[in-house]
């Protein structure tokens, strides 16, 4: 009973947040910025008649509440309007570009979490060892690096000077099939994925380290040791599972940051995903695309937070109180 209420509360909270994002977006682009004026700020030129026609089409002269209801309806149906630049429906452009981004961001998220957690465990368990100090300093350095710049340096070194990897793109040709195709894509994926992974590994390592240090001070770890459980077993069965929880939650929470970080990295490596689409949209002031990307990434983050909250409540009943 209590758990159902817990889930319901979080779902309601997520819906409220989504509603806030939608309202915020509406206020920014309709009430504050006039879409037709924004359109003229991008490289499109319109004479007054065309502007008037567009005002009609966007429904700008309707009262704001009417506009808001129309906007909510359109957005929920997945209609984000037409790109100022290409004139194509924004939804089409996005659905073409979404898979490469999921591949890149997903792989990087998994790799950085797994390796970050392993490094954090090793450092915390032997606190103050050479490994601990080196990995902590390394984590802080990686955390301090602008990841777009890191990508440029990796590109210049490994694709330019050494020539080990392709300089960008998703695949060399679209004629390859089967295993050769997978290998080709993997080769293209390697550098951008490495950049994103390095960009976030430090954060996870630091979080895991401090989370494990906290758990190591808890009574039940002391008890396990007192019972004579071997060091390895204490770590594997008592300390780490309890320390993992906050780290995984934070990994879920940080999905938004990784999505954002992918924008510059996709542009640097010409990776044909949402990031590249966003970058081009910024350059051309293509507001419908920018708005859609903002809404979609916010929705993704809200969804992931909801999953994190619910699974946290399921895994750790103490939070449900």
């Amino acid at each position, binding site marked *: 009973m209590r758990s159902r209420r817990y889930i319901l509360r979080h779902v309601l909270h997520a819906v*409220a*947040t989504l509603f*806030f*994002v939608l309202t*915020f*977006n509406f206020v*920014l*682009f309709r009430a*504050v*910025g006039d879409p037709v004026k*924004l359109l003229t700020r991008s490289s499109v030129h319109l004479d007054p008649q065309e502007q008037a026609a567009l005002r009609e089409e966007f429904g700008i002269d309707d009262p704001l509440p009417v506009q808001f209801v129309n906007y909510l309806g359109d957005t929920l149906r997945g209609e984000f309007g037409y790109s100022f630049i290409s004139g194509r429906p924004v939804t089409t452009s996005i659905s073409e570009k979404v898979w490469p981004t999921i591949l890149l961001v997903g792989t990087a998220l998994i790799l950085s979490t797994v390796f970050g957690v392993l490094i954090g465990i090793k450092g915390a368990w032997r606190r103050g060892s050479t490994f601990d100090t080196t990995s902590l300093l390394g984590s*802080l*350095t990686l*955390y*301090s*690096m*602008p990841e*777009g*710049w*890191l990508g*440029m*340096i990796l*590109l*210049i070194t490994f694709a*330019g*000077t050494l020539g080990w990897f392709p*300089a960008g793109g998703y695949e060399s040709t679209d004629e390859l099939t089967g295993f050769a195709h997978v290998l080709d894509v993997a080769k293209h994926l390697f550098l951008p994925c490495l950049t994103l992974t390095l960009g976030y590994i430090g954060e996870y390592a630091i979080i895991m380290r401090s989370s494990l*240090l906290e758990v190591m*001070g808890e009574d039940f770890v002391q008890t396990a040791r007192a019972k004579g459980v071997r060091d390895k077993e204490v770590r594997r069965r008592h300390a780490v599972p309890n320390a993992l929880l906050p780290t995984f939650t934070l990994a879920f929470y940080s999905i*938004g*940051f990784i*999505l*954002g*970080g992918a*924008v*510059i990295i996709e542009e*640097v490596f010409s990776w044909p995903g949402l990031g590249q689409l*966003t*970058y081009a949209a*910024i*350059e051309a*002031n293509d*507001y419908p695309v*920018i*708005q859609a*990307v*903002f809404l979609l*990434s*916010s929705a993704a*983050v*809200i969804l992931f*937070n909801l999953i994190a909250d619910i699974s946290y409540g399921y895994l750790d009943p103490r939070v449900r109180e």
Partner: protein
Amino acid sequence: MTGMIETPRQADATTVGLEAPAPPAPRDPRKIKWARRRRAFAGFWRVFRQSRMGMVGLVMLGVFILVALMAPLFVGQADLGVSDPPGAPFQPPSLEFPLGTDDFGRSVLDLVIWGSRISLLVGFAATVMTMVVGAAVGISSAYYGGRTDSVLNAFTNWFLVIPWIPLAIVLASILGQSLFNTILVIGLTSWAGTARLVRADTLSVKQRPYVERARALGASNWHLVTRHILPNVMPVIFANTVLTVALSILAETTLALLGLGDPLSISWGIIIFDAFDAGALSAGLWWWLIPPGVCICLVTLAFTMCGYAIDEVLNPRIRER
């Protein structure tokens, strides 16, 4: 902890009251206040000094701030102009230009030295903004409680969830590109974390007896907030400030790399963006790309290291571990 801080203040207040008519000992309350501040700072410094990480960070920071302040002594404005540059474009490092030249023929070393001014300025200014907004929202949320609290707290939580980069893209593309807008966008997107910390701290400070005492004596809300609440949540705000400067400098870089920075001001982020935009990646112009990135990394690292050390001083629980 609280008792230790509060007792001398109350003792001082009574002493002042009693000794005020006696002319030979002008115990100016302001002097007492400053003496107490000096003592507190000396105590803080004693602990901070023991952290090697903090000291290294502080020295690095000192060097960068010194360079930024003295930049006009090394770099003439004329050398930064594009109309009459001092060298030929795209020169690799030489004795005359230790870090080579950019696409106009300006010395990259000069650009990087000058860039420290803009990058640090944006970092500090955006932090001040973040702190002011965060503290205002956090304190009023906790202090007034009730409906104000629910509304402000919900607002804060929403802003915490919205992914940072997409939100910054939306705001920056609507506001347009200028140095002030960069600062504004960073401030508007990063106050929520501070607000949450300040709110939590205010909630506990507000319950303390001396606040109640002041209220009983008829102190106004403004007096209570500025004289009693704010000084006591200051340590939390201050510890948060140092890390926020690091994040703001990284945020400025991200905005610049997205093409949303002010193209007319030379920050480290803008230098990297210009290099990227001018095709430094395919031409392998490493001397143009590496120095600004290294500077960003070092400054961020320096702030982060100081932040960690301050956190250890203010948060004895961490120190013990």
